[in-house]
């Protein structure tokens, strides 16, 4: 059962584990909106270390406003970046966070 729904405001955990992760540095600590739930997949953080039968978890497409990602972004306010992020990296965020 996915923890988040389309439209939820979520924050990417501000964590920096060593080793193989697929959550880009530029999203850490940032908030965005769940654009879509992409399905359940095995966590690449486990597959990369040989745990091929790792349990699956939900993968979300999270939409970030460019203005929220880059302080000096000079394009239109509507511009966004969508990143595919696994559930273990997301937590609920308050509006405006």
């Amino acid at each position, binding site marked *: 059962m996915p923890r988040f729904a389309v439209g939820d405001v979520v924050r990417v955990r501000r964590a*920096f584990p060593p*080793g*193989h992760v697929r959550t880009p*540095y*530029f999203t850490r600590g940032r908030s965005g909106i769940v654009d879509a739930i992409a399905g359940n997949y095995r966590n690449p953080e486990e597959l*990369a270390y040989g745990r*091929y039968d790792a349990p699956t978890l939900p993968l979300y497409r999270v939409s970030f406003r460019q203005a929220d990602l*880059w302080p000096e972004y000079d394009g239109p306010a509507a511009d966004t970046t969508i990143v595919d992020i696994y559930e273990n990296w997301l937590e609920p965020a308050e509006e405006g966070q």
Partner: protein
Amino acid sequence: MSGERRVHDMGGLAAGPLDREEPEHAAWEKRIDAIRALCAKRRLLRTDELRRNTEDLGPGVYDKLSYHERRCAAIANTLLQKNVFTVDALGRKMSEIERRWTTGEVP
């Protein structure tokens, strides 16, 4: 936890203009692509393992090497980790090839 950006994780960094040249890839580079595909089919190489080994080349090496050089190194490391062949076997084979290519001898 404090935040160091890993060398491969480059989204958002400043960089120069794109070089849009598309040279034909060298035969050895195509060979690497083919080896990767075949090993993946044999389940000897998982995408995530290859990525991990590529990233673990670390700063300095990661940028110094080309895309295919990184791929070659990562494939070799993954296959070594899986004991598909030994370091000894790989080293001897590489020496043999260098010898062949330098002297023109046939094995």
